C-alpha cells in the first residue's frame, strides 16, 4: 500500500484559496521593501483565514499607498487623499464595526502631511491596523527627505538631513495606541508574526515597518537602507503568534519568554533575546526607543501592548450591529417623538 504524497493545502481554514488574498500586480520597483510587506500581509491573512469580505483597506497617497491594490483583491478598498487615510478608516469603522480595517501609509503620508490625523487616530484607539511603510524618503516625487529621516542621513545627491526624525512609534505609545510595533520589511518571520497578532487586536495597531526604497534611499549614507538595517536592527525578542483556533501548548524554558493573551484567545509569545523587556509598560517602551536611538540601533518587535484599553467604538457605546445596516425603523424616531419635541417648542 503506497501513501499518496502530501499536497500542500490549497485552501485555508475558511475554504479560500491563496489567490483571493492576492491583488493586482505591483507597479512598484523590483526590490522595493513595500512589495515584501504586501507579501507578508497576503500570507498573514491567508494563513489565519481572515474573512476577506470583512476586510476594508485604506491608504493615502504615495508609493506605500498604492499597495492596497496589490493584496486582498476581493476586499473593498479606499485610496484617499494625501495624509488623510485615518479619517476615511475612522468613518468606515464607525459605520460598520464588523469591518476589519487595514490602512497602509508611508512616512511622508503619515509623519508630515498626515501628522494631524495620525495622532488623533492613535488617541481614539479606533480598531484599525495602521501600517507605515517607512523608508525615510518621498519616492513618488523622486527622493526628497521625509520627516522620519535620521539626523546625518544623506540623500543620493549628498544632501544631509539635520532635522530631528519623528518617531511614530514613540508618538503612538504616548498618544494611546494600544498595539505598537516596529519591524523591517526584510525580517519575514517577525513581520508575519506581528501582522498576525495585529489581526487579533481590537484597538489601534501601529506597525512601523522600515521598508527600504531601492530607487532613492538604499545608498551608503542612508539609515533606511537594506545594508544599514542588516547592521543596525536590534530585535527585542522573537515573536510567535498562536491563533485562538490552534490548541497548541509550547514549552518554553521558564523565564525565557513572555506570553500575552489577546481578546479572542490568541496568544503572542515573546521569546527573550538577551534582555528583559516588558511590552505592557509605556515607560519601558519609550525608554528603550530613546536608548536605541542614542546607540543608533533600530529596535524591532512588539514595543507596547495594552489589551485592556477601551477602543473608540466601546467608548461611543454603539449598538452591536453595524450602524450602516440598521433599518429605517431603528433610525427614524416615531411620530410621537416628533410631536413631543414640537410640543416643547410651543
Amino acid at each position, binding site marked *: 500500500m503506497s501513501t499518496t504524497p502530501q499536497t500542500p493545502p490549497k485552501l485555508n481554514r475558511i475554504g479560500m484559496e491563496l489567490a*483571493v488574498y492576492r491583488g*493586482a500586480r505591483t507597479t512598484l520597483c523590483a526590490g522595493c521593501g513595500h512589495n515584501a510587506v504586501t507579501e507578508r500581509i497576503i500570507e498573514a491573512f491567508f494563513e489565519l483565514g481572515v474573512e*476577506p*469580505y*470583512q476586510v*476594508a483597506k*485604506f491608504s493615502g497617497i504615495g508609493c506605500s499607498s498604492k499597495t*492596497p*491594490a496589490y493584496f486582498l*483583491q*476581493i*476586499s*473593498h*478598498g*479606499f*485610496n*484617499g*487623499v494625501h495624509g*488623510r487615510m*485615518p*479619517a*476615511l*478608516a*475612522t*468613518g*468606515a*469603522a*464607525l*459605520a*460598520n464595526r*464588523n*469591518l476589519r480595517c487595514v490602512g497602509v501609509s508611508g512616512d511622508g503620508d503619515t509623519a508630515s502631511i498626515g501628522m*494631524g*490625523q495620525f495622532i*488623533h487616530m492613535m488617541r481614539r484607539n479606533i480598531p484599525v491596523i495602521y501600517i507605515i511603510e517607512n523608508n525615510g524618503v518621498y519616492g513618488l516625487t523622486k527622493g526628497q527627505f521625509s520627516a522620519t529621516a535620521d539626523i546625518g542621513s544623506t540623500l543620493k545627491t549628498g544632501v544631509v538631513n539635520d532635522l530631528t526624525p519623528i518617531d511614530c512609534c514613540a508618538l503612538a505609545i504616548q498618544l494611546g495606541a494600544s498595539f505598537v510595533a516596529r519591524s523591517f520589511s526584510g525580517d519575514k518571520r517577525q513581520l508575519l508574526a506581528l501582522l498576525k497578532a495585529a489581526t487579533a487586536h481590537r484597538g489601534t495597531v501601529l506597525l512601523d515597518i522600515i521598508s527600504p526604497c531601492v530607487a532613492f534611499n538604499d545608498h551608503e549614507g542612508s539609515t533606511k537602507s537594506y545594508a544599514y538595517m542588516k547592521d543596525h536592527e536590534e530585535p527585542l525578542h522573537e515573536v510567535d503568534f498562536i491563533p485562538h483556533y490552534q490548541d497548541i501548548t509550547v514549552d518554553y524554558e521558564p523565564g525565557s519568554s513572555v506570553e500575552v493573551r489577546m481578546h479572542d484567545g490568541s496568544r503572542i509569545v515573546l521569546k527573550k533575546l538577551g534582555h528583559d523587556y516588558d511590552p505592557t509598560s509605556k515607560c519601558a517602551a519609550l525608554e528603550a526607543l530613546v536608548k536605541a536611538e542614542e546607540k543608533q540601533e533600530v529596535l524591532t518587535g512588539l514595543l507596547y501592548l495594552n489589551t485592556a484599553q477601551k477602543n473608540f*467604538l466601546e467608548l*461611543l*457605546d*454603539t*449598538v*452591536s450591529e*453595524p*450602524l*450602516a*445596516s*440598521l433599518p*429605517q425603523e*431603528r*433610525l*427614524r*424616531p416615531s*411620530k410621537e*417623538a*416628533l*410631536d413631543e*419635541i*414640537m410640543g416643547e*417648542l*410651543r
Partner: protein
Amino acid sequence: MASTEVLPQETILGERERVVNDFSIQVATVNGSGSQTANMVLLRAIFQMGVPVSGKNLFPSNIAGLPTWFTIRASKHGYIARKKETDFLVAMNPETARDDILSLAPGAAVVYDEPLKLDQLRDDLIFYPVPFDKLVAPCCPEAKLRKLVRNMIYDGVMARLLGIDLAQVETALRKQFKKKVKAAELNWNAALAGYTFAEENLEKRDPYFIEPMNETAGKIIIDGNAAAALGAMFAGVSVVTWYPITPSSSLVETLIDYMKRYRVDKETGKATFAIVQAEDELASVGMVLGAGWAGARAMTATSGPGISLMSEFVGLGYYVEVPGVIVDVQRAGPSTGLPTRTMQGDVLSTATLSHGDTKHPMLFPSSVGEVFQMMGQAFDLAEQLQTPVFVMSDLDLGMNNWMSDPFLYPEKPFQRGKVLTAEDLERVKDWGRYRDVDGDGIPYRTLPGTPHRRAAWFARGSGHDEYARYTERPIDYVRNMDRLARKFETARKMMPAPEIDTRLADIGIIAYGTSHWAVEESREQLRAESRLETDYLRIRAFPFSSEVEDFIRCHRRVYVVEQNRDAQMRDLLALDLGIGTEKMRSVLHYNGLPIDARTVTASIQQQEESIRAATVRERTGT
C-alpha cells in the same frame, strides 16, 4: 424727581397714531450679562399673545464684555425679515448707548439706565429713565447675581409700557428657566420690580402697543440649527462628525441632545449613532466619506472656513462617488471675516468646490421648516446620487429664533439609492462600479462587508475605468467625466423645484435662502410705493431646473437678491444655465446683518428709476 420728569403726554403722542403690533424693539446689552434670557422671555411673551414675532441676535465674537444687540420685531402682517429701523430701544450698554441713541429716527422710544443720562443727547426721542441698580438690589440680595438678574427688569418695564400681559411674561420666564426654580423666582421678582416701577413712575408717551392677536396658536419657536439637527435625526443620520465653528456648533450640540433622547436603543441602552468631534474639518469630512462609503448616513456641519478646508476631500467624494451631507451655516468671509455675522457668501465656491471639474448639489433653505425638510432630502439625494450634497444655511437662519408651524413627520421612506447586495450580484452577470447601466449617469455600488466574490471595488481618487481599475487612458478619463456630467443632469431633475409666485409682471425677482423674507416684504412695498408689480422665484436648489431658466427668459429683467458682494448666485445662474447676465440685475447686501426689505425696495426703486430716466433720454435724444 429728575428721573421721572417727563414731557406731557399729548406733546408727542397726540400727533401720532397708535402703532399696534407692528414695530421693532432693539435691546443693547453687554455680551455675557444674561441678556439673552431676558430677550427670549420678552419675545416669547409677545408670541404667546398671538402676535407674529421674530428675534435676531447681533452678537460679537467674544464670550463676555463686548456689545451685543437683540432685535425683536412684532409684525401683525407676519413679516419676519429684519427691520432696518428701530422703533423702541432698550439701552443697557454704556459703551454703545451714545451711538445707539444717535442712530434712532425721530420719535423713537428709549428705555435706558438712568445714570447714563441719555436724555441729554437728543430732544426728539421719547425717553424713559429706569434706575436699574436701585431696582435690582432689593429683589436680588446676592450681589454677584445682580448682573444676571438686572436685565429682567427691562422685561417688566417693557411689559408695562407696551401693554404685554404680565401673566404671559411669567409663563415665558418659567418656560425659559425650566427646572431652575430658584433662578426663575429671582428673575420673576426682577421683572415685577420693573413692571411696578414703570407703573408708578413712567407715563406712556410713545405710540407702540402690543395687543392680543390669534396668529401664533399652535406655532413653535426654534432656531435653524436646531431645526436642521431634528431634520437630520428624522432622516436617520447615524454618523456625525464635526469641528466646532461659529455659527454651526449649536447644530451638532443640539443634535447630540436629541440623539441621546431619541436614538438610544431602549432595550440595550446602546446608541444607534456615533458622533465624533474631529481634529479639524479635513478629518470631519473624511470621516463622513469613509462612513458614507461603508453605507451609513453621515453628515458634518461647518461654516465657510471649514468648507475651504474640506475642498480636497469633497473632490474625492465627487470623483469616487460617495454620499455625504455637509451643512454650511454661512457666515461673513473672506478669511475669518465676521464670524458672528451672516452672509450668503459660499455659494459660488461651494458649487464647484475642489480642483478639477467638480460640481455639487446644494439646497437653499429659507425657513426652519424648510431646513428640517431639506435635511431629509439631502440624505436621500446624497445616497441616490452617490455624491456629497450641501445644505446651504446661514447664521441668520441657523442662530436666530424663528416662528414656524410645527414640522410635519416625514412619512416618505429613506431613498438609499442603487446599492447591490450579494443576492443582486448573483443575478447581475457583469457588474462594473462605474458603468452607466441605466443611462442616468448613476452607477451601482456595493458596500464593504458584502459577502460576494464580485462585490469588492477599489475606490480611488486617481483615474479609474468603469470597473474602478486604475487607468490613465484618455478615453477612459473622458468617458468617466462625461458620465459624471450626465449624473449632474439627472440631479437637476431630482432637486426640489423652485417656488414661483407670478402676477404676470414684466419684472422678476430671484432670491434664495434667508433673503426670501426681505423680498416677500419688499414686493409689497414696491407695489404700495411704486406701483411696481413683480414676479418672484425662490431658488431652492442647485443645479437649477428648467423653470429657473424659463423664469429669466420670460421676464424683461430679473433682480437677483443676495447677501454677498460679488453677485455669486447671478454668476452661478449664468454658468449653470449657459445664459448671459444682461437681463440679471443685482440687489446686494453684505454688511453682515440680515438683509431687510427696505434695502431691497430702495435698490430696485433706484435701478428702475435710472432705467426709466435712460429710456426717456433715449426717446428724447438728449
